[in-house]
């Protein structure tokens, strides 16, 4: 398959206009010493062959029949309208809206996205998007360093381990120290971050990064963490899950200074890890230190309202080495997916999704407890994911996977303290029957 429109006659006409005799002459500027040698790239495929190849690869995956896996990526209903809209070529095949007069569709949808994220989080300003939740978290921590002019970051061990790894990588750049605030993971612990441990982290701390709900599903004392951070002059970066914000207090209300989140649950399929969308929100007073694109409303000479990329003096194309971040391309189309999702479900639908997820997770925990197969590992309350103590968890997790049942996530892969536990998630898509089959399969794997 070649997508070139040119006939040989077209090429001949262009060569003649240029005044050269062959396409080889177009590459005369590549020094002989470094001309490419041959490669092994295979021959072209027709569309029918390309489809066969991709169907082959898709067929090599086994999509589990039943799954309780979340751990940062959640399976929710993606309403049909979402795919319909983000598949529209006017959105999908446009570039970053550098020419606002012919990009009002993209720009207005981003403005709506920013508005929705502010409303969900209770914050005053939200960016146009980041690569994912992890990089949004890392960029938020770097932003806190710029705002406080401090160079140390504390992160709760309850934050998604992938996010913590990305945060450490980002902080290694400018040499920012990352300290981990422990979470009570030991037997008898409550699985949350102790606000009392913040005070002795020192007075040069830029921020405390904590997640609500945390990676283990537990509900953190966010207001106390915010207070503890503020008492030592540090900011609170709240890492949240957007669907939970239908029921949980928005970070703006408990004193968060910065919010970062993974927007994947809002209408984006798991797609083996991406593309997703990073969300970031802050207080208006910090806007000039925000990384990434922002869309603002304005008017044209005739007074018509329109939208533009704005406050660009923060960005790399204007400020170069003094920019707030190097981010250029972001995840605009995925932000559109989230926008369409939120409009499609509305406040009632989002509440229903959250309540069903919360209810089915409790159903799942109760069913496992009642069958004597598992116990909740932590006290306190949880949201829509729960850490359960399950004897011989790793072996049984593998045995169930063979049957096409994914019994959640195995925390011991990263956290040895959580040996023999499973982190299980349910959403509105989880059925009673699936829970019954998990209970049965887990029972049989004893």
């Amino acid at each position: 398959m070649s997508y070139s429109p040119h006939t040989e006659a077209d090429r001949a006409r262009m060569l003649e206009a240029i005044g050269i005799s062959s396409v080889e002459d177009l590459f005369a500027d590549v020094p002989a010493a470094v001309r490419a040698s041959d490669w092994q790239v295979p021959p072209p495929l027709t569309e029918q062959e390309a489809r066969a190849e991709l169907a082959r690869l898709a067929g090599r995956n086994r999509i589990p029949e039943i799954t309780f896996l979340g751990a940062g990526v959640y399976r929710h209903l993606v309403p049909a309208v979402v795919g319909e809209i983000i598949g529209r070529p006017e959105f999908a095949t446009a570039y970053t809206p550098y020419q606002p007069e012919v990009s009002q569709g993209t720009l207005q949808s981003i403005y709506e996205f920013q508005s929705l994220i502010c409303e969900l989080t209770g914050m005053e300003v939200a960016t146009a998007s980041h690569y994912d939740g992890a990089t949004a978290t890392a960029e938020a921590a770097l932003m806190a360093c710029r705002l406080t002019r401090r160079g140390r970051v504390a992160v709760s061990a309850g934050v998604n381990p992938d996010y913590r790894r990305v945060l450490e990588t980002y902080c290694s750049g400018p040499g920012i120290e990352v300290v981990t605030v422990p979470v009570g993971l030991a037997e008898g612990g409550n699985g949350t971050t102790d606000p009392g441990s913040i005070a002795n982290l020192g007075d040069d701390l830029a921020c405390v990064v904590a997640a609500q709900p945390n990676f283990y599903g537990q509900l953190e004392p966010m207001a106390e963490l915010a207070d503890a951070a503020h008492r030592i002059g540090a900011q609170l970066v709240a890492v949240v899950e957007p669907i939970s914000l239908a029921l949980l207090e928005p970070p703006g209300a408990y004193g968060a200074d910065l919010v970062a989140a993974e927007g994947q649950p809002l209408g984006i399929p798991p797609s083996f890890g991406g593309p997703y969308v990073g969300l970031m929100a802050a207080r208006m007073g910090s806007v000039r230190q925000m990384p990434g694109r922002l869309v603002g409303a304005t008017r044209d000479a005739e007074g018509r309202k329109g939208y533009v990329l704005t406050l660009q003096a923060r960005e790399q194309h204007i400020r170069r080495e003094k920019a707030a971040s190097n981010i250029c391309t972001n995840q605009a189309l995925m932000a559109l997916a989230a926008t369409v999702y939120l409009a499609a479900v509305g406040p009632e639908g989002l509440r229903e999704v959250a309540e069903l997820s919360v209810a089915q997770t409790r159903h799942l925990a109760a069913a496992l407890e009642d069958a004597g197969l598992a116990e909740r590992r932590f006290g306190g309350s949880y949201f829509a994911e729960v850490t359960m103590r399950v004897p011989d968890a790793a072996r049984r997790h593998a045995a169930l996977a063979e049957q096409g049942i994914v019994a959640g996530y195995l925390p011991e892969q990263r956290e040895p303290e959580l040996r023999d536990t499973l982190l299980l998630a349910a959403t509105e898509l989880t059925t009673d029957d699936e829970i019954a089959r998990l209970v049965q399969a887990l029972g049989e794997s004893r």
Partner: protein
Amino acid sequence: MSVAEPPGRSDPSGRGSAFSGATGGSGLTIVEPLIFDASRRERRAVRFPKPSEAARAAAAGQPELPASARRRGAPRLPEVSELEMLRHFNRLAHLNHAIDIGFYPLGSCTMKYNPKVNEWAARLPGLAESHPLDPAQLSQGSLELMWLLAELLKDISGFDAVSLQPAAGAHGELTGMLMTRAYHRDRGEGEQRTKVLVPDSAHGTNPATATMVGYETVTIRSNERGGIDLGALRGALGPDVAALMITNPSTLGIFEDQIDQVVAAVQEAGAIAYMDGANLNAILGRFRPGEAGFDVMHFNLHKTFSTPHGGGGPGAGPIGVSARLEPYLPAPMPVLAEGDPAEVLANAWALRSTPGARFELDDDRPKSIGKVRSCYGNFGMFVRAYTYIRSNGSQGLRTISEDAVLAANYLRVRLHDAYDLPYDRLSKHEVVFSGRRQKREHGVTTLDIAKAILDHGIHPPTIYFPLIVEEALMVEPTETESLETLDRFVDVMHGIAEQAKTDPDAIRRAPTTTPVGRLDEAAAARRPDLRHTFRDETEASMA
């Protein structure tokens, strides 16, 4: 009054009373209010089931959400019917220019056709529903695809290893420069090498990246031919230099014809040679940066390999590296744990799976810089790029670059009578004109020219970049535009150059046929209005 303030009830669009109501505009001219303006209490699109009896009963013994953690008052998301919301976004779509609608010669962005079979592939349920943390035995297809794509990118670029993890070009730059630093540190030169050399023609992400990695940027000037000044480069190189970040072909659309000497000089100084690969579209099959001695390069899959840009993303910015940087690549890496690589490749090229082959994610990389993104990157973009590379195949990839370069040179010779061409030499994928003549002689700026182009249904070139060209107009036609389209663009550009002489005011008033005219960007920055302000509760309930 801030522009954020809601316009009067009779005029939710803010664009005059003729356009009032939720479906403003006349005929097919669309003026679309915010989705929030269409919100009415109790309207619904998607609904969900109620929790089952069993779920409700089971919940009794489980902890509730504590009152202290609960939200008071629902978020004010729009309440709309499905048709209304669909129309809203469809109408917004009409306000966009896009490749699928018309010519989009936006320099440096490679706005070529995004084949639809790639979209079909990315939506295959077997790929789209694949959870990144599923046990590896359930994800062999996703892992094989990533492994195959990395193998192809290695071959295309001449590098020894490729990581797909970075989510965009700038993210690839960050990854490459963190690896550069890890490499120097490992050799005990971390403290001493503090500078990164960046040509004055570079994209803004290059210096911004250097800063994010804690490096100081030193700008290297270009010579009068538009290439990097070798003398200046040699003068700046020294034991304090960590890397050179160079774009090749450059942002002037020029191949650095002394690139072999550039790379040699950098390596002689013990520094890392970083190539910004945003412009790889010009040189497929002609120049392989890894083979030419570069240590690291990012690809922009959303440019060269045609994954749609989505109005600003997602993209994907894999990086290729030489053997000496390989240990520092981000973790994890998809690897072939069991099976013969040559056999697996041969089978895949023949559209066959290899019995017994097993793929894994290798997270045991002690020297790795760590992770730069959750999971493994923008997988959906990998699917599209893989489909694209396989569809084009070896000859197709070479044709891409030949036709892209042919088109750019054709526009160069056809337009250089009307517009100044500061560097009049063989182009690669793009050509950078200057509007300085129009500005000096007729007071028509490059911005004016760009806005005039809009009135012809064409997206303007990139403007005012690269910075070293006064009044720059950076034109990248790509290989997928027909000769008729190129000729029409030539006519439009000639017409505008002519009009600059005869009726410059008309150009300064452009555009006049777009949904909005030139927008007041200064006001937008002075009084930022970055989100919708809701009417107060009483008003909302009356609405």
